[in-house]
């Protein structure tokens, strides 16, 4: 796909499974060792039912879905979300995006990010991609 072919109404999907050690990898890479992400006992104690994935890792999955689709990491210009619901080990995070508008060389994306139960884990998610 070429960036210049992108038009309003185009859509794409991607999914990532949160494998057992994902939060450990992300903690190591990011330096965020908050026990809610790495200590299942602590996660249970504070009512989360185990460890939860770092929100910024979930958002990293979304960024990957976008850049895999458009083919150029440098074309992602803006990305935002609200962290609405915890993501757990074993969950599958699905990203579904649609181009809402194309204006002045920028494609605006409306994005839905859900778990395997169809619950939105991120809300108000949007991005813009440069087509130039």
């Amino acid at each position, binding site marked *: 796909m070429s960036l210049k072919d992108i038009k309003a109404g185009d859509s794409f999907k991607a999914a*990532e499974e949160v494998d057992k050690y*994902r939060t450990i*990898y*992300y903690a*190591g*890479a*990011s*330096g*965020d060792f908050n026990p809610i992400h790495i200590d299942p006992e602590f996660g249970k104690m504070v009512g989360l039912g185990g460890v939860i994935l770092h*929100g*910024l*890792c979930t*958002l*990293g*999955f979304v*960024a*990957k879905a976008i*850049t*895999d689709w458009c083919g*150029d*990491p*440098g074309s*992602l*210009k*803006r*990305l*935002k*979300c*609200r*962290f609405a619901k915890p993501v757990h080990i074993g969950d599958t995070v699905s990203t579904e995006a649609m181009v809402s508008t194309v204006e002045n060389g920028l494609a605006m994306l409306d994005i839905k990010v859900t778990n395997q139960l169809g619950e939105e884990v991120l809300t*108000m998610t949007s991005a813009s991609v440069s087509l130039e």
Partner: protein
Amino acid sequence: MAVDRKFIGKEYGPMTYEVCKEKIKEYARAIKNEDPHYLDEEFATRSKYGGIIAPPTFAVIYSGQLAMPFFMDPELNLDFAMLVHGEQEFEFYDIVRPGDVITTQGKIANIENKEKVDVISLDAYSRNQEGKLVCKAVYTFVIRKS
């Protein structure tokens, strides 16, 4: 206790971060992103960027450095046990590459005192060694009132 709105405008940093190829690879693998722009030297050299680049959200690595002084600010006195990451926004202005030295300056952009929560947002502006803005990140945290 509510977070005092008088701290709107308070600054953190500057903090500098030197980007290296191995950290880029570690970060990319951590977010399950095997894009050859980040991992494959040969592919990256042939790409329009002429070498390995950082994923856009690598911004969390260099601008996230502000988290420590912000969270640990004794004056602000955030209730860390009640704090969650509420929202995140990035604006990307330029490619970040290995060898870049990124300097990030942060500022409390807003504090809202709501009935049950305080909402505090931190703007982080990251510039490279040429002074060029590479990323603006907005970290928004929600603190439940105990």
